[in-house]
């Protein structure tokens, strides 16, 4: 429980993808309207007292400063307070965390968290290159490392140590594309085979194109409120029971280990302690699979399996729909897409629907506790949030 209790009472997102039809403002507005709609008219927009905006690439792609007004304008929220959160790819979950803490503090009753990213106003390669800047990785800028490297560097060591095979990584992509095919909001809705993953174009060896999340436009929104008034907005509120956030070095050469990530491990431990649960209590998880190997790292960092056993655990089917702990039923970043600032918020949207039994064909039966795992940069920041059906 966070303070006196904070609940999610509405969630909405736009279809992720190459949204050449929509700009930043349209994406944000679409997610906001979808969230209001999910509450069936029981949330009066004027009840929302403050908002948190998560967006990462404004300064890099649009080359302009992004402030809270970048949300207040398209939604017509002014003069209400809007705080812009930027924490690389973990910004969405961190925005949820900070909004929840503001509600828990008693200052606000009802708040909005909205994540939005417009990435495909640039060619995919240029967009990839612009992301260099989200890593605080100044050391690398002239040296040619891009974001896939930040996870591929773990894969090299995990394979070298014999804890992982190249096929295990491909299997993550196969699983998540299978899940994403069931999600109408996902970007890549076509199943892929292991051979297709292994045979697609190399990006950063051993990662191929199908091991990497697509460059995505999208937006997602949730409305949070004090738990004691949640029932006035919905009959099935989802309580946010824990949030952990941790940091690690932003450089590759000052990492203390490869094949594990310190910040996610610590963020998860803090979140489990706050929630008073253990990993085996989780029914469904949305993981930060920006690259296939990242999901395998997550199984170990989050304690879903033992260190060095992620490949075995995956191959046993644990992470698939119908498995012991379905991971990324939404399709994850690999299939659903990864509009950076929106991702953490969209993960919570999926957990909201899963816990309320509204996830359609990809529903995890009987899910009561869900977890979101949202990693920024090279693992230099991670936010883990946990929610429970009230």
């Amino acid at each position: 429980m966070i303070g006196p209790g904070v609940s999610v009472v509405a969630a909405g997102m736009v279809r992720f993808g190459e949204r050449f039809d929509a700009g930043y403002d349209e994406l944000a507005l679409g997610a906001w309207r979808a969230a209001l709609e999910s509450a069936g008219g029981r949330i009066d927009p004027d009840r929302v007292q403050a908002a948190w905006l998560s967006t990462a690439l404004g300064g890099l792609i649009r080359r302009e400063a992004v402030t809270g007004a970048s949300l207040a304008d398209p939604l017509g929220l002014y003069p209400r307070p809007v705080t812009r959160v930027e924490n690389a790819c973990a910004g969405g979950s961190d925005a949820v965390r900070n909004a929840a803490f503001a509600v828990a503090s008693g200052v606000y009753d009802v708040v909005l968290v909205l994540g939005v990213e417009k990435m495909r106003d640039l060619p995919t390669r240029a967009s990839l290159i612009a992301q260099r800047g989200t890593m605080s990785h100044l050391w690398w800028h002239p040296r040619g490392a891009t974001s896939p490297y930040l996870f591929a560097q773990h894969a090299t060591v995990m394979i070298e140590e014999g804890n992982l095979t190249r096929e295990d990584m491909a299997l993550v992509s196969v699983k998540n594309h299978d899940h994403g095919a069931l999600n109408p909001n996902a970007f890549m809705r076509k199943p892929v085979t292991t051979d297709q993953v292994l045979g697609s174009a190399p990006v950063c060896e051993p990662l191929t194109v199908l091991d990497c999340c697509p460059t995505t436009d999208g937006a997602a929104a949730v409305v949070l409120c004090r738990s004691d008034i949640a029932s006035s907005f919905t009959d099935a509120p989802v309580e946010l029971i824990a949030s952990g956030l941790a940091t690690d070095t932003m450089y590759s050469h000052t990492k203390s280990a490869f094949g594990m990530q310190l910040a996610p491990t610590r963020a998860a431990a803090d979140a489990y302690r706050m929630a008073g649960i253990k990993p085996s209590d989780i029914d469904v998880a949305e993981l930060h699979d920006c690259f296939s190997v990242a999901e395998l790292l997550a199984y170990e960092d989050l304690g879903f399996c033992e260190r060095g056993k992620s490949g075995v655990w995956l191959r046993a089917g644990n992470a698939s729909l119908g498995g012991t702990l379905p991971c990324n039923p939404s399709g994850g970043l690999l299939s659903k897409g990864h509009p950076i600032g929106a991702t953490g918020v969209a993960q919570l949207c999926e957990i909201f629907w899963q816990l309320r039994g509204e996830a359609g064909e990809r529903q995890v039966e009987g899910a009561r506790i869900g977890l979101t795992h949202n990693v920024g940069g090279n693992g230099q920041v991670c936010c883990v949030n946990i929610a429970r059906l009230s």
Partner: protein
Amino acid sequence: MNEAGIEGVATYVPRGRTAVADIRRSWPGVAGPGGVTSVSVTEFDEDVVTMAAEAAEAALGVAGRDALDVNMLLVATCSSPYAEHSAAAEVARGLGLDRSAALVDLAGSTLGGVQAVVTAVDAVRCGRAERALAVASERRRGRPGTAVEALGAGAAAVLVSRHGPAVVTGVASWRHGVPTRWRPDGADALVHYDDSRFEMVEQVVPALAAVVRALGASAGFAALGPLDQRARAHVHRAVGVGGEQSASELSETGDLGSAGPLFALAGHLAAGAGDLGVCAAVEPGSGAVGFLVHAAVPVPVVAKRPAPVAVGYVGYLQRAGVIEGPAPPQPVVPHAATPAAARDDADGSLVGSRCDACGSLHVPPRRVCADCGGADLALERAPRTGRIVTFNVQHIVAVHPEPAPVAVGVVRLDGEGGARGGQVSAMFCDSELDALAVGAPVELVYRRLGMEEGLVKYGWKARVVDGDRAVIDGATASAGVDR
């Protein structure tokens, strides 16, 4: 007046080789330099600054001296990346020379290499410097489709001090003739007045003969340059001094400009002590300059030669910048002339900060130790060798002008501990991708990291070390050239 002598010599040749026959196929009927079968070619991230740094590091190493022992650096080149800005300063930064070291740039003439050694000797003799490092570095080219299109790339470094065993006993200069090769202001390729007989008989021979005579004709050998094989033979006959040991390598590298005579000197010194010899350079229209050297005891010489790889004519033109790919991606961080770049100055010389409390070394320097949080750290030169911790081959990259794929990774520095300290991030260079492996030994070399608005950013990259690649004695290096 002090004594002055040479205490160490090193040469560096980049790994690329372009066969002259390959170029001739595209330009049938065009004559090439006599006796030259291939030319050495710089990689995309090499220039005269990086080659000079490689040769200079090797010269210091072979002489057993530290960069901080050098108080004058002279850099001779006709192919500086800058028309205005000291190339010597960029080399000094890479080497980590003391900031008080004098910097001398000798640009614009192939006589510069010999002149740099002469100036170094003068500086030591008169007490201006205790130890001076003279470096000549070139990557010239002629206009496509001309006889002088194929020119070589390489660098040579000569360390001069009061007690160097190879004593320089005489110096002579002679101005002579009209130019037959020149590079106009703003042009990036040599113009050539193509009459080799005239060039030889009326320009080269009289100028060299005058210098050799002035130094005393009893010299047992002459290290001459920049001349092709046929020209050297001609000069040796005409001037009446003995042959030289280094000729075999010239046929593989091509004309090395101001560095050529110093390569010849390295070859002579590597062959042993005793001989009195002439090291001279000649440039048609400018004349010649030479010095007499006597090695009473052997002088340490090292030839640094990454294993050669064949580069086709298109690759040659790409590396020379004649053919350029699409414009580089817009930089996220503005160019190298920023306050931020100035604060990172130490980064250029691979200097780290060592924690007083736990001993961890951090490269680039940190103000707070990543291992123990200690705040008492002191700057220190980092080791130049290590082993690969992790690496990946990237097929989509933001570097320019290198084509993908480009490998990047983390290297654990030799002898350094610490959980977070003791490692560097680096791009890999000059390495076959299948030679990359966790645990593979690497050396760190000074390379170009990119260029913005004509300003080059230099820094360190990792090169996989193959035990057979560094040849310790002289001119017979570089087997296995693909012709």
